[in-house]
């Protein structure tokens, strides 16, 4: 499956691993914050509607 | 504006104004370095220009939050902003006062501290020249940083984080002048670059600082 990376296998794999982890963390962070803000807004909008 | 400058100078020299603190800090940094890297004089004389520059830069940084903080707290900054003098001029005077109370003493003290670090004799002139040409830029850039963080409580750390990256070009060219001078190489290009940065900073940054102050005073 993994192509023959020769003597630099560690180098290439660690670079990919580090980058993908960082990017995944970034995306997760953005989506998490987006969800959270949406929930907060919906909550307060509902409350405002209920209370008039 | 002259009155403002005199007032700031007086406030700084008065007890508790922080005058001399920067100098003491500079001294301590320079004394600590040999403890950290070892007492070998060859090594010390090689790193002396850089250490002196970094020491001066940190000493300068230390006193930045005083530029506006006191005036902000007691409300005199609002008065100054409504005074008939343009805010840009006030900011420039503030920076000048900071340089006179912090930058200039550092420049004058640097040769004495250079002896401690075994700086080669040829380097002394260039050290003073580079600090003399570079520290005004440090004061002006620092004033901009101080204006940015004036409204923030405990903004000291943030101020360092904002200002230090802005100090990079000045530090590079300043230390380069001092190092080349100490090694007896040609210094013309870095001196000109350093002077260029200083002049440009003095000419342009007060506008940014004044704009930032206006926003903060809104």
């Amino acid at each position, binding site marked *: 499956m993994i192509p023959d990376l020769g003597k630099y*296998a560690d*180098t290439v794999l660690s670079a*990919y691993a580090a980058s993908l982890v960082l990017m995944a963390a970034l995306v997760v962070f953005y989506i998490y914050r987006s969800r959270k803000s949406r929930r907060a807004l919906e909550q307060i909008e509902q409350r405002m509607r209920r209370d008039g | 504006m002259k009155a403002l400058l005199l007032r700031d100078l007086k406030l700084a020299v008065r007890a508790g104004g922080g005058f001399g603190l920067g100098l003491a800090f500079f001294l301590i940094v320079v004394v600590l370095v040999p403890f950290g890297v070892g007492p070998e004089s060859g090594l010390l004389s090689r790193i002396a220009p850089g250490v002196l520059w970094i020491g001066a830069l940190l000493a300068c940084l230390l006193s930045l939050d005083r530029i506006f903080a006191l005036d902000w707290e007691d409300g005199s900054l609002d008065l100054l902003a409504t005074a008939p003098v343009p805010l840009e001029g006030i900011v420039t005077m503030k920076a000048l006062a900071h340089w006179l109370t912090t930058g200039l003493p550092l420049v004058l003290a640097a040769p004495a501290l250079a002896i401690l670090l075994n700086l080669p004799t040829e380097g002394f002139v260039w050290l003073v020249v580079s600090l003399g040409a570079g520290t005004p830029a440090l004061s002006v850039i620092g004033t901009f940083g101080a204006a940015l963080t004036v409204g923030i409580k405990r903004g000291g750390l943030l101020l360092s984080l904002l200002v230090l990256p802005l100090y990079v*070009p000045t530090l*590079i060219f300043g230390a380069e002048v001092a190092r080349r001078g100490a090694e007896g190489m040609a210094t013309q290009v870095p001196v000109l670059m350093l002077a260029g940065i200083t002049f440009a900073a003095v000419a342009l940054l007060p506008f940014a600082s004044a704009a930032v102050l206006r926003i903060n005073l809104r």
Partner: protein
Amino acid sequence: MSIWEYANPKKFMDTTGPVLPWIGALAAVLLVVGLFWGFFLTPDDYRQGSTVKIIYLHVPSAFLAINAWFMMLVASLIWLIRRHHVSALAAKAAAPVGATMTVIALVTGAIWGQPMWGTWWEWDPRLTSFLVLFLFYLGYMALWGAIENDDTAADLTSILCLVGSVFAILSRYAVNFWNQGLHQGASLSMDKEENVADVFWVPLLVCMGAFVLLFLYLVLTGTHTEIRARRTRALLARERMS
């Protein structure tokens, strides 16, 4: 149709909201395709061996690290001149992406440099200026976080971005000068474009596209988050008033 219409947050949300998932999906697909292509289907470089595969991460992230700052600069200008609220928030949303991209570029560069130069870190002009750029991102984000009033924060960070841009460019040249002064002649060419052949070029382009779309997706998502957060704060304030 002009960007000024999107100064209205609601209009902005309504227009970009529906396309947002599509941008994200397209970014993900392109990223998978580009990286798969680059990782599995490209030959090794005769000099760099398999480490050449790192460019599919390194070059796009470095590209974005610089251009994210540039986008923030433009957005800051638009905010300062026209008080375009969405623009200020977009600049805020772009900063963490830019900072992360800078880190990715630095990390991949360091990992690549280890076997190539024999050291993790070399005070090479490009590496050094990226490190400085990262410091600028940190300061920018810290300033956003420190100020409570939204408009004040937008104003101050915008001016910081302007001033910072000038100093970032200055630093770039200063660092160039400084390093030549350090070791003359010992130049380490980081220029990989010069020997990039078509086999490497096409997947690289795909990866670039993927990173740009990812950036767009994240910035739009972040902007939406900020707009909602702002609206929530406003509603909370109104609730407390009544």
